[in-house]
């Protein structure tokens, strides 16, 4: 889970929320000692929380348990997919994470937003277009794997919403991303 190590400040902010979710809904996870892993879980905590709330009203407890398992598996990957410079190609790490999210979303009617971002290099308008390419690349993969197109909105923020504000690859790597946000 190398991609976890680049999770940024934004992600660690959700750390405490992730612990709450992990403690209340899971007894199988025990490798929380790795701060990075916890941070990754935290990144998807919002998605897991919303999914848990949505599934609370369901009638089948077996299906609930399975759905919960899939949610947690997806949450463990985090909700951020990272990209190489000037690229919108999905990395193997992003694909593994996406597969888990697709499995979790398949059993729901959730609609999602895919928010594409870039690092600060290059012009702002070109980066808006590149961020959209990234979001579309994630969307296309999801659609190809069974998530209905109408459930997905892909938008781009270009370089306008960085996670890491400074220059240099450590910041840039955090910013070249697509964030998956569950809308409802």
């Amino acid at each position, binding site marked *: 889970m190398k991609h976890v190590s680049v999770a940024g400040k934004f992600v660690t902010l959700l750390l405490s929320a992730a612990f709450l979710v992990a403690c209340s809904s899971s007894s199988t996870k025990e490798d929380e000692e790795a701060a990075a892993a916890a941070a990754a879980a935290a990144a998807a905590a919002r998605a897991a929380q919303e999914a848990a709330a949505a599934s609370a009203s369901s009638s089948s407890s077996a299906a609930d348990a399975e759905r919960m398992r899939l949610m947690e598996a997806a949450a463990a990957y985090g909700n951020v997919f990272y990209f190489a410079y000037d690229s919108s190609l999905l990395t193997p790490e992003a694909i593994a994470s996406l597969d888990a999210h697709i499995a979790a979303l398949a059993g729901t009617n959730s609609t999602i937003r895919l928010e594409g971002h870039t690092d600060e290099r290059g012009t702002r*308008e*070109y980066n*808006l*277009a590149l961020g959209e*390419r990234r979001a579309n690349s994630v969307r296309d993969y999801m659609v190809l794997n069974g998530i209905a197109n109408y459930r997905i909105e892909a*938008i781009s923020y270009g370089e*306008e919403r960085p996670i890491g*504000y400074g*220059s240099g690859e450590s910041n840039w790597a955090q910013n070249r991303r697509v964030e998956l946000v569950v809308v409802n």
Partner: protein
Amino acid sequence: MKNPAIALLGMVLLCAAIGARADLTIEITQGSDNPTAIAVVPFAWQAAGAAPEDVAQVIESDLTRSGQFAPVARTDMLGLPSTEEEVFYRDWRALETEYLLIGKASPTPNNGMRLDYELFDVLRQTRVFSGYESGPASDGRMLAHRVADKIYEHLTGVRGAFATRLLYVSVTRGGAGNKDYYRLTMSDSDGARPIVLLESREPLLAPAWAPDAVQIAYVSFETGRPAIFRQDLATGKREQLTNFKGLNSAPAWSPDGKTMAMVLSKDGNPDIYLMDLATRQLTNITNNYAIETEPAWMPDGKSLLFTSDRGGKPQIYRYDLASKATTRITFEGNYNARARVAQDGRNVVLVHQQDGDFHIAVLDLVTNRMVTLTSTALDESPSIAPNGSMVLYATKFGDRGILAAVSVDGGAKFRLPSREGDVREPAWSPFLTAK
């Protein structure tokens, strides 16, 4: 040879303190070779009390910022003449002054102000130019910029562009977990008198002037998606022009003001469209699988430049409206983007990547020669003054986004750092008055 006066100038603070947040200061970092020495004597205030504005200081700063003039320090002046009779040429020759500007500032009825000025050639010991500017006293700085424009034009042969305005976006970081504050600000060309036109917690970008300088357009994410808005500067009235799926960005007004070029990705990938502002009818002028963005009109309105990565990397292309033909115009380097064209239709400023760094370069469309103007690493969003003399752009200084300017010949440079937050996306206005 650098003039020591310019080197000594170091830091010139010009800002009026109207809402300290988005104030820009000016730091001159490089002057041209052999600037013309000019003494701008404080204007005599023709009424009781102190003058409401140090107009001579505004004029002096304007001329200095152009890089073409070196001011004579006030502390070196042996007298402060305000009429021709009070001018002793030998005093100014002793200071190696080439030109001398003197003047008077007078109150006029209904809160008006009038600036009378006279320019002298010290070596030839003769008055070479005089005139006046008048308007509301509250606009004293703008009157001073207009005087600077006249002096600049008289001495260089090029119309001055000091009495113009800037648009820019400033961003104050929201801090841990909070969204940032984005502000669209309009200021005088020297960064003074900033007025916040719009404030949002969602990104603002791509401010653009209408050719009449009465309206502006920009991209706002306030709806949760990018959308193009236009706003009337006098009334503040705003109107959302687009709400398409995907990108709605890079608005660029045609020179006749009737059409807006823009980027929409509603059909799958970013393409350039022209919107007839009267009918809202859209015409698609690019259509392929590449990224096409950053449209910029040629001054004659007959063709547009835009950025496309149809060849694999972003390069500048030109689309001719009559023939519908597209031709590539940049060939040097792997990344040339966001072109803006000078009013002469000849100089194109753009972002040019060199050894991994992004610089501002100027491409001469006649000779096809490209010259890199800046040496910092993350330079972007070049905007050219309406007289073609200076290029304003965004760069990074330390970890902060700031605005900087360079003359088109690369000789003069100055920075306009903000006291707070990041500043970016400058857009230099057209001339505000007919010539």
